[in-house]
């Protein structure tokens, strides 16, 4: 069983594998340091026969015992940084060419979802608006334009490993591409008032045919 919810986005796997890379590195340090502590506590517990050694660790020769491990820590840190930079740039850098653009506006305590309608433009009469339901086709790059009407909300798609705050006064662009059809939750991840707990939408990922059918059934006609 995985610790994470099932991953259904194209970039989610990269976040998960970066997580595991860090887990192996830090896990090794954890076992090494805690193991040493435990070993020293037992091996050097007070006994009448043994006296403590006088080792102030002030000469470079002695201090090397802690400086060299620090150097290794630094190298591993930089490795994690550079591995992470690539993943970050792919997800939060430039948004790739998108097949579909949807406006998501947070407000106490709902997600307002707006589709541009048949003319493909926002702010026109044929815009289609629903609350808390985000319908998207599978395998397409979806660009989400995040806004907020009141306080800061955070648009969280746990199954797609995507999180982005929605800040009043700003338009923030995010994107994702779902890899399988299904229904997933869209909780708000930033404290937004008394209704924060329970502020939750649904992401419905359709097959291409189903999505066309949904558009036909709900969007206004041309």
């Amino acid at each position, binding site marked *: 069983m995985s*610790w994470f*919810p099932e991953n259904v986005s194209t970039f989610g796997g990269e976040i998960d594998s*970066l*997580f595991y890379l*860090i*887990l192996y590195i*830090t896990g090794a*340090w*954890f076992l090494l*340091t*805690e193991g040493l502590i435990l070993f020293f506590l037992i091996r*050097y*517990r*007070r006994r009448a026969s*043994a*006296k*403590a*050694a*006088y*080792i*102030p*660790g002030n000469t470079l020769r*002695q*201090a090397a*015992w*802690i400086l060299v491990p*620090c150097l290794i*820590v*630094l190298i591993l*840190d930089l490795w*994690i*940084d550079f591995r*992470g*930079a690539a993943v*970050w740039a792919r*997800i*939060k850098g430039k948004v790739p060419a998108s097949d579909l653009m949807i406006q998501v506006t947070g407000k106490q305590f709902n997600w307002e979802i707006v589709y541009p309608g048949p003319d493909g433009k926002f702010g026109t009469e044929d815009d289609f608006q629903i609350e808390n339901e985000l319908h998207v086709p599978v395998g397409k790059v979806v660009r989400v334009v995040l806004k907020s009407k*009141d*306080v*800061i909300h*955070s648009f*969280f798609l*746990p*199954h797609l*490993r995507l999180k982005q705050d*929605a*800040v*009043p*006064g700003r338009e923030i662009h995010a994107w994702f591409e779902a890899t399988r059809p299904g229904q*997933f*939750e869209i*909780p*708000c*991840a930033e*404290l937004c*008032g*008394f209704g*924060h*707990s*329970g502020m939750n939408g649904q992401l419905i990922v359709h097959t291409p045919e189903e999505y066309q059918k949904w558009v036909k059934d709900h969007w206004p006609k041309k």
Partner: protein
Amino acid sequence: MGEGPLAKKMRIFSTDHKVIAKQYLSVGLFWAVIGALTAYMIRWQLAYPETEVPGWGFIAPDFYNMLVTMHGTIMVFFVAMPILLAAFGNFLIPLMIGAQDMAFPRLNRLSFWVFALASFILLTSFFVPGGAASAGWTGYPPLSAKVAYTGVNWGLNLWLLALALEFASFLMGGVNFLTTAINLRAPGMTFFRLPLLVWMELTAAVIFMLSVGPLIAGAVMLLMDRVIGTTFYLPEGGGEPLLWQHLFWFFGHPEVYVILLPGLGLVLEVIPAFSRKPIFGYRAIIYSTIAAGMLSFVVWAHHQFISGMDPRLAMPFSITTIIISVPFALIVFAMIATLWRGSISFSTPMLFAVGTLAVFIAGGLTGIFNGSAAVDIYIHDTYFIVAHFHFTLFSAVFFAGFAGLYFWFPKMFGRMMNETLGKIHFWLTFVFFNAVFIPMHFVGLGGMMRRIANPMQYEFLQPLQPLNILITVAAIVLLLSQLLFVINFFWSLRAGKKAESNPWQANTLEWSTLSPPPHANFEKIPTVYRSPYEYSLPEAPQDWLPQDLPLTSPAAARR
């Protein structure tokens, strides 16, 4: 020392740094009880949502938000800071440097009373109409900037006022710490003979003084938005919500080290005394501390990776954040190296000190996950973060704080604490701390968001509920275990074995005077001959060598 006739009669208005330290300690411990009660209510609600909390009743969602807000505020500003920085700093800095009191005893008294006023205001805020602040301990606007968004009016204004006063109090305290340690050191007490705790307290005081200014300005702007209708943080009037986040975290991240460094300082005093070995790499630790202090000013935006700030900013902050692990790794390695070839005994202070080390390592390592901007996309604002900062801060505040209290209790109150009770207290705390906060990581990885009152409202979180229940049960046992400390503390105050002046056979100056020390600390200002950790020196007659003990052998005198 600056005591008027009234103050002489009324001990509570004392200017004696030892009395003031105990006053900070008492207020901090009082707040710790309130903080613990909020933790209990939060945990009950999360395990058994929509049921009555035993001893309290039903928790409404807005009341839940108030609980999480006040839990954070209380634990960081009204428990951690008064105990680690103010109480231990006040008590130990003058004693450890061989001074009779602080450089400014009256300023010291003023800073305590301003802190007491801040505490009183925060306490009052629970009882005003609308209740106490409920916009999170980070108080992000616009949520915190308009009454309509939370329904809390004066509660939040008083929260801001209490914080502003508290900052003023600790600014005065910081000035006092610095002036005292620079000017009042006993003859022979060079900077590189200062105990590491003093170095840590000073670094913390400097970090605090340099970082708090922007936040005070930010808090005033927030108060003006709330009270007189300005729009610094409100976009409808041209304001910018993210401005607050930058001001808050420019202070807020250094603040983590303001708490952490004194905690590590306490541990750095206890470990050599119970290993009978000099601390390994004394100067390297000092340089590392200063480096960490400086780095702490350029990591703040790691709290804001997904806040909407320019994504290109994430990488520089991610790199500085992850690199700050290096100076702390050095301090941890130095502690471990001190244990190597020591002669280690396990009195209660040492158990808590080693406990701090063991727990802090895990907390530091999970910080690498959060510092990696890409991983943070997923774990930001989840319980993984909550678990991480409890591993770092619970270790610094409670494990290290207990190590310090058990260690210096004889010096503070002239009596020993009960060892058996202390050891049981340690093991219960250690086991149940881990039983609470290890599973919490997995709840976070499952995706559970912070500050939600009811995880059962989300389908994807429902499978995690057994873990939430386990955490709550363990948390209740953890909280109840602290009663052992309370009993031990009060029982020892009255009936503990009388303490000698140096019960742990330690080297620093506070152990060369009486327990408790007289009003002016030392009968005669001591002269310092050596660094503070000369344990098991081959030339010395016994395995400790007080800083103020002259030694005739030329080899030993050179050190």
